[in-house]
Every structure is written in C-alpha cells, then in structure tokens.
C-alpha cells in the first residue's frame, strides 16, 4: 500500500459512506411514496368523442391536439398551458369547437361535422366532445350548390 491509512480512519470512512448511501435511499423513498402532486395543474388526460359516425375518431383527436388539448398540456386554474403557449380555458374550448367542426374525412376537404360541443372536466382533465354529423348541407369548392 502506498497510502498509509489507520484502521480507525477506514472505519470512519466506511461509516460515512453507509450514512450517505442510506440517506440518499431514504430521500428517494420519500419521493416515491409522496402523494403530493406539486403545484402543477390538472393534466389533459384523455379525450372521449361521442356522436361521430363517418369521421374517424383519430381525425377528431388530432384536431383537438392541434388546438392544445394534447397530452403534456395542463389546466392551471382558468388557463390551459400547452407546450407552446398559455390560453384562457374558455378561449381554448371555443378554438376546440372550431377545430372539431373543421375536421375532414381523411383525404378530402369535406367537413361533415355541423355542430360540436366540447366540455373539459377541471378535476380529471378528461375532454368530452359531442359532435353531430350532417351530410345534407355540404359545400364543395368548385361545385355549385350544396350537397
């Protein structure tokens, strides 16, 4: 050995190591067992769509994701916080209604959703969308009249 160490020094070092290790483990356990959610708001946890028949579910979900109702966004009080910006919740809901009504049949510009209602649950973060499809009053660019 080229470093001379007394035996009691070694014991003290070992003790310190064990103390630090168990201390860190305890801190992790305290984190793992804590139920405190911190000051972050309610996350957007899921989207339930009702009333769609011909427009696919995925298209409506991606419309909602475009206006901020996507995973990773959260509600803080009356504000929807997304990865891009903060929007007042009622404004976000209005945007969502518009976006849902502009959802197309994939591969076309036909927008058959005539009315949409969006509700956000502030406690659970679940977004419920009710849509009504209407094929009797659709305007197609380049064709006269409605279909």
């Amino acid at each position, binding site marked *: 050995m080229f470093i001379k160490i007394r035996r009691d020094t070694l014991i003290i070092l070992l003790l310190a190591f064990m103390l630090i290790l168990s201390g860190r*483990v*305890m801190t992790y356990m305290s984190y793992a067992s804590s139920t405190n959610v911190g000051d972050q708001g309610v996350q957007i946890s899921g989207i339930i769509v009702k009333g769609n028949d011909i427009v696919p579910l995925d298209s409506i979900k991606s419309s909602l994701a475009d206006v901020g109702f996507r995973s990773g966004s959260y509600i803080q009080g009356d504000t929807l916080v997304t990865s891009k910006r903060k929007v007042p919740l009622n404004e976000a809901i209005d945007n969502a209604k518009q976006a849902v009504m502009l959802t197309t049949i994939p591969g076309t510009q036909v927008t058959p959703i005539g009315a949409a209602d969006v509700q956000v649950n502030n406690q659970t973060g679940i977004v419920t969308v009710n849509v009504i499809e209407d094929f009797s009053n659709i305007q197609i660019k380049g064709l006269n009249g409605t279909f």
Partner: protein
Amino acid sequence: MDRSNLTKFFILLITVAMVVNTASATMNVIVITDPTGKDPNGAAAGSQSWAENMFQSTFIMSKDKHFAVLSGGEGNETPRLGAIVSAINSLENGGTAAQAASLANGFSGIRVMDGGPTIGAAVGGYFLAYVVIVDANNTITITPYNGGLAVLPPGDRGAIIHLRNTPGNPQYGTADAVRLQTAEIMGEMIRDGYPATAVVAAAFKNVAINAGEKHGGGAVNLVSGITTGDMFTPPAYNTTGFSMDQPYSKVSPNGWSVAFPEADNYQTSPIDGTNLTTVYAYQALQNAITVTANSVSVSVYGSDAPGITETTQEIVEASVNKHGYSNTQIASDVNKAIGNGLLVGVNDVEPRDINVNQNQKAVGVYYTPLQNNRTSPPWNLPISSSILSILGNMQTAIGLILVILVLFRSTLISSFLKK
C-alpha cells in the same frame, strides 16, 4: 428537328391523357354473405389501387347505419367529392344502395360503389364490374356490367367487383382477366360459406398479386363497424399506400409481433423462443376486420400516452381468455403490468375502473394519469414521506461531515493538541 418536336408533343399528349383517365383505375369490392345482418362478419368492402392517394375517403364507412361508400382516389377530385357526399346523404336518409349509387351518373367520369348488409349493394357511374349472385341453391351467377348502374339486390348473397388497370402499372392489361377470375373465386367462397371478411381479403390478394392494383386503401367490416383505418393508407399526399401483397408483420403463437422492416431481424420470439409466422398485408387486413370468438374490443380512457392503448388491449385480451369477463381479475392483471413497468404514467386501477360488457365483448378501462411526470404510482409505506425525507437528508449531511473530519483529521487533532 421538327419531327422530334412533334414526337415530344405527342408523348406529352399521351401523358396528359393518361393522367386524366386515372379517374377510375382502382379495385372496389363489396361482399355480402349474410343479408340478414346477424353474422358479425357477414358484409365487408374495400378499395385498393396502383395509384396514389388511396386515403380513407376511398372506403368510407358508417358504423352506426352500417353502410360503406367506395370510390377511386385519383382523378377529378371535385366531382368525386360531390358524388360521395350525395351518396352518403342518400344512404343516411334511408335510400337504397341502388338509389345512392345511381347519383354518381350525375357527375362526369365518376364511380361510386355502396352497400350494406341489409340494403344490398350497387355501383353507379363509370365502371367495369362483375356482379356475383349466389342463390339459395348455391348456383353462382356472374354478370358483367359496363357503366350506368349495376345492382346486387337486398336479400341476396353475393358480391360486386370493379377493377381497371392504372396506366403505369407494370401489369397493365391484366384487369379484364383478373376481374373475372376474382369474381369466380369470390362466388365459390361465398357458396362454400366463408365469411365476407375472408372473401374480401381473398379478392385483395388475388388482385394485388395478379393485376398489380395493390396499394392500400383498406377494408371495412360493415356489420361490426370495424375499419383498417390508416393501416395501409399513404403516409402523405401524392404517395402510394402499403403494397397488399407484401409481408406486413411477424407473429409468434403467443401473440408477440413485430412489423416489417424491423421484422427482418427476428427469426424467433425474443420472449419464449417460438418460431415466428410471417403475416402478409392481405392476411393482416383480414385479421383486422374479422371478429372472432375470443376477440375483445377494449376502450381506454384517461390516458392518451403512447403505447397505453395497445398494451392494455393485449393485457385485457389475455386476461379475458384466461379468466373470463371478471373485472376484479382484469384489474389485478392491469395492476400487475403497472407494477412490472409495462404500463407507465398511470395510477393503479380498481375493479370499479373496469367497465365490462360481456354481451358485446367490450371492456372499458378508465385510467387516472399520474401528475408531475411520474412514471409509476406512489409506494405505500408505513412511514410518512416527510419524515423519511428529513431523516434521509440528515443522514446524508452527517455522512458528508464525517468525510470532511477524516480529511482534515491530523490538522484538527494537532490544532487541538497545541491548545
């Protein structure tokens, strides 16, 4: 000089003519094997083409009213949309398949095929089609139609297939032979009692291999309201979809699967070492739209995190096959998966979070997402977390002080001794 210019001009003209004429170069097929609408696999439809842009608009389905509207993806976009929307509108208001399809005759160069288990099927507009009817004595009648309106009457078992070759398809010119061949195959399968989903898949296979009109598109099960969705459709505008004669994935007997091209790297299942079977796209299409005795429809609420839906589907299916429709069993299996780290970012579920409907073979799972970017649910310890946190920090501090003491040990001792 003049002559070469003229040739170029003609080539240009021919190209323009080809592009304009792609309006109806596609395969559309609709099959009804149970006109009563009781067999969950008794009616199916689908579209594929050599051409680009075979999005979901080429195989539209109403899952509530059980009808499908098929069309080509290419060509004069605006009239096609007009024809599709008029046909949907007519069917929504209780029109028959023949009424809806005949509306396509009002738009130039357009074809619309539609149908449902109880309303029959029809194709209208510009098409080259065979109508296959299998009567109660199992006699197969195959009738060719060329434009106008062709009908498979309500209450009859049968099929309609439209097929034309897209210019540019290396197998150009095979459409007429393959259309008849496919109609014969479908007629025989319907006679032999195969479900409509299997007949449609067989038609996709035959057309994809022998006529080259092979890019998805996709198919729908009209009775159960299942669609292949975006499984085979093009990833972007002006691209083609998945080739229906290509290998799609590899699966093990226990359900583990991997999609191509990654599947090239696997010969056996990494979980249990069993041999993998290659699934071709037309088989994947059939599996996707066929309802089997042990298939469960799983709905997941509360978390849109990637992978949660798929993993939950697998877990619930395995649990139902093993223990039946018991919400306590499903909950405990889901919790086991959360404990293993298979499902990440959601809290443990309780039996009341599992909604079971045995008659419809449907299971709904309601998750509660974890806050603060946590990946697993909080541990249940007998000591409160704040006490643990204080103790842990104190121990760390004492440990660090001890290390410092050791480092400056001789200096400290000697300085004490001096005093």
